[in-house]
């Protein structure tokens, strides 16, 4: 299954729109029995609101018995996540990938 590709701008300005797209996407992946995979390589700008949206996504995934997998998180994203003290879960092992 193709991972969901996050846009370059993961900030308060786009979270509403992005949430709608993630919701639509999550409907399609919900029935597949595999981890929800999100490609974060394109993220060039991120803020706390963006990170919180990913946390929401993770919560939805675990509600379906799945985990969220964040692949190739860009430095922009990991910097914010680290600033927020989020070093476990999907933000855990840096740019590669990890399982919550």
């Amino acid at each position, binding site marked *: 299954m193709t991972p969901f590709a996050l846009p370059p701008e993961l900030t308060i300005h786009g979270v509403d729109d992005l949430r709608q797209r*993630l919701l639509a996407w999550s409907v399609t992946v919900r029935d597949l029995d595999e981890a929800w995979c999100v490609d974060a390589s394109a993220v060039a700008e991120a803020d706390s609101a963006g990170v919180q949206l990913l946390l*929401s996504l993770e919560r939805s995934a675990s509600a379906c018995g799945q985990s969220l997998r964040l692949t190739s998180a860009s430095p922009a994203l990991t910097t*914010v996540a680290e600033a927020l*003290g989020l070093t476990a879960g999907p933000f855990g092992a840096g740019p590669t990938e990890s399982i919550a």
Partner: protein
Amino acid sequence: MTGHDIDDDFIAQALPAFISEAKEQCDGLEHLLLQLEDSPADRELLDALFRCAHTVKGSAGLFGLDEVTGFTHHVESLLDRLREGQLRLTPALSTVLLQCNDEIRLLVAAAEGEQSPDATSSARRSELVVRLQAGAGPADAIETGAKAGSRGATAEPSATARCWRLAVRFGADTFRNGMDPAAILDYLRGLGRMSALVCDTAAVPALEDGDPESCQLGFTLELHGPASRENVEAAFDFVRDDCSVQLEEVVGTATTAPNTNEDPDADSHPAAHAEKSVATAPAKGDDTRFIRVQADRLDAVINLLGELVTACAGASLLARGTRKGPLIDAHQQISELVEDVRTGTLQLRMVPIGETFARFRRVVRDTASALGKDVVLDIVGGDTELDKSLVERIADPLTHLVRNALDHGLETAQQREAAGKHAQGRLTLSARHESGSVLIRISDDGRGIRRDKVLARARQQGLVAPGQTPTDDEVLDLIFRPGFSTAEAVTQLSGRGVGMDVVRRNIEALRGSVTVHSEPGRGSNIDIRLPLTLAIIDGFLVGVGRSRFILPLDNVEEVIESRPNAVACDANGRGVVELRGAMLPVVSLRQLYALDGPEPARSSVVVVQSGNLRCGVLVDALYGQHQTVIKPLGRMFRMLRGFSGSTILGNGEVALILDVSALHQLAADSSARASHPPLLTAPAEQATPEYSEGPIA
């Protein structure tokens, strides 16, 4: 995202609220400073003190009041050093801070447009700033040099490394307001080494059920470094409005290593830890639970309520006339509800008198030091509540009485020691509730009032006829007489253009009374009795012939039934009865006011009490409790003795409200003057059981 656009209209609207808040903070500052004089190291007081100054500075900044912000900043810096224990609050420093507070007050008043600051005031402020820095020592000078803008890790080089534990919960609007918690955390990292940072994500909703623009993040962390509390708090300045920050200093050896007892737990169960911190987080807006209401709106409601009470009584009366049970019941229920609303509404106006008392700390402090006297002020019963308008209007007479006591009652330390007393004088302001009124007492342990001097002076001024020898109490009462000039009398109750007669008049205008007791050499007590409220009282409705009278229910002690002619009264309606072995002066309203109508077969004596005096009021009939809306008596009726006002009954009739203390005088006159009081021995029978013995109210 906007919200930073400064709207002039908004400022114009919000400014009065700021002014009022700033004034309160200034009062708070003064109050705290004076409290600190007794316990200079009290950390809680110091913190509160700092917060007051910080609030003034913060909101003044918001309104662009640079003068206030700039000056308050210096005060704030000093206060910060005080609470960090780097400085001690000396009396001299306290004086400087009090003066600074006065300056802040002036600046705030200037912002309100009351007066404009002039050159001398700014010179005065610069001088105060210099003295503040002198008081704070060199470190503060460095801090001041570093300027307000760069309050950061560089400030306070003398501070040692400390550890702050923070629990932060950001408000829902944080993102929308353009704030980013990550940026704030980064700012904190600039203040020191951050450890044990845990992001509390428990509140983050699933994708389906949340608004991604609402911030749901919380954090706990520890910060190690030299930052002061103010530095750390400053990080949250921009999100203060919707963010709760708990900040505590971790003391002891745990400052460098994470506390092993708590932190593993916090790391592995962030949610559990967060829950705990949420539970203990004081609602940041504790003070926002108060609603400010304009006093005149409240007054309008109370006026309407007075009308409602009267209308309700009228409706109940009509309902009773129909003899329809359900209608009467319904009206009964309405009356009870109206009574509850009345009680609740009047409660809204009640404020503790403590705030007014606290103002006198400053008066006492300044006046005593100006007079070279050592005086300690005790405040007792500051939580006693009374009507706000009374509190406001009693302040001036109180000030006068307090100044008098300081100026003339209390002696200097040498005089006191010579008289064998403790060198430090003691002035006590106390308040308590007493049978429906509030008793405010100003007592000092000074030299007391010399009755002989007062009497001599009064004779000289022709207030007392040559042959007349007044009793001791009457002599003391002379000081309240309008003509009693005291310029040279020993008591010298001179004051500031206000005589004691004005004090008494002001208090009587509030339906209150003032009396003085004094023991030469031991001190004086001045008792002020005030009604709890000016508007509505619980009355006890009685009838004589076809007239109706109201006695304040709180003054009614008991009711005894008496046989016809059991109370023999003189032509003026004054007599006595025996009540359980003691003589009780009685006033017959029928004779006193020459009321028509045949005497009933049985009559009642209502025993009323005011202060420590009791007397009986002889009436024909008892009608029970009545909600009484007080209407002042018109000018024409001012001469009537014994009435404090009137009220309109439900059927439209007017009833006069009896003034119990004036009745006392009438009754007491009879026992004093009549050489052969019409004594009688018929023991007064106890009335119906519900009225017997104990008080009714």
